């Protein structure tokens, strides 16, 4: 979305719109379709990407739509980490592309990580290599450390090169219990 006062104003408006639309119909395709209309009329020159998902805590299911954002990552209890990139579509308000909804399943102990480009984007490295580095950092950190330590460790590993220029936001959730 960019940086600065204008970008943060847009983000605030979009976030308010999400909350309002989700209170009417929270399903991902419905919310993002309405946001597309909102972005076209209210923020036509802004570039907004997002992942919107609904978590079913009882069954560990997440339904989500990805509008041009970096793919979420699933880190499983047994130490694998993979990109959830099968619902990729265009940034908000960009016409001419079909949106689809993905359904992810989190087993007991599995974690889902959402993040901004500052975590993986570097001028001297392809974004695919940044994503590979992130998966590796998650595997090295493992699923058995407390969640706050785990997230801190991943962010530290990813920014240790000191080359990060952008701000970094990362959100992780982990399903409780063991298999």
């Amino acid at each position: 979305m960019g940086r600065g006062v204008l970008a943060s104003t847009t983000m605030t408006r979009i976030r308010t719109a999400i909350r309002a639309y989700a209170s009417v119909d929270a399903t991902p395709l419905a919310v993002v379709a309405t946001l597309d209309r909102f972005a076209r009329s209210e923020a036509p020159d802004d570039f907004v990407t997002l992942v919107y998902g609904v978590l079913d805590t009882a069954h560990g299911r997440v339904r989500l739509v990805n509008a041009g954002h970096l793919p979420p990552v699933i880190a499983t209890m047994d130490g694998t980490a993979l990109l959830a990139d099968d619902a990729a579509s265009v940034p908000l308000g960009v016409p001419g592309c079909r949106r689809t909804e993905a359904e992810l399943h989190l087993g007991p102990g599995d974690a889902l990580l959402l993040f901004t480009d500052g975590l993986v984007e570097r001028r001297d490295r392809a974004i695919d290599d940044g994503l590979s580095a992130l998966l590796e950092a998650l595997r090295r950190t493992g699923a058995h450390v407390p969640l706050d330590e785990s997230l801190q460790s991943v962010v530290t590993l990813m920014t240790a090169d000191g080359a990060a220029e952008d701000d970094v936001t990362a959100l992780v959730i982990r399903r409780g219990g063991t298999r």
Partner: protein
Amino acid sequence: MTEQDPVTDQDAAQDWVPIVIAGELDLYSAPDLREQVLKAVNTGRLHIVLDLSDATFVDSSGFAVMVSAYKRVRALDGTMRVVCADKSVLSALRISGLDRVFEVFPDMAAATSEPPSPAVPPAEATPSVHADGSADA
């Protein structure tokens, strides 16, 4: 246009306008691209080829200007194509879903091998949900 044709403003308006972006397209260089696009559009030249052949990095500010340019020329029945062969930039386009929006060509010759034709007008902005559960952006 062939060499025999007199070059008139009308002809120029019907031809591709190349805009070259070299190096890094980011927060600092994106305004320059915006200027170049506006200049072309304001002089009635609505068929733009963004040449990213020598671009090494594009961040979200760069994509923002590209999307904005695309929307602008589409609204005026123009077209926009992108030339890019850099693996990193192509990956970034794919991850942001923009490889499905822009027509991307490996080189300038491929992008301009045919004269521009008026774009198909974008679908009306009322998103519809399809039988398979997907919806138009």
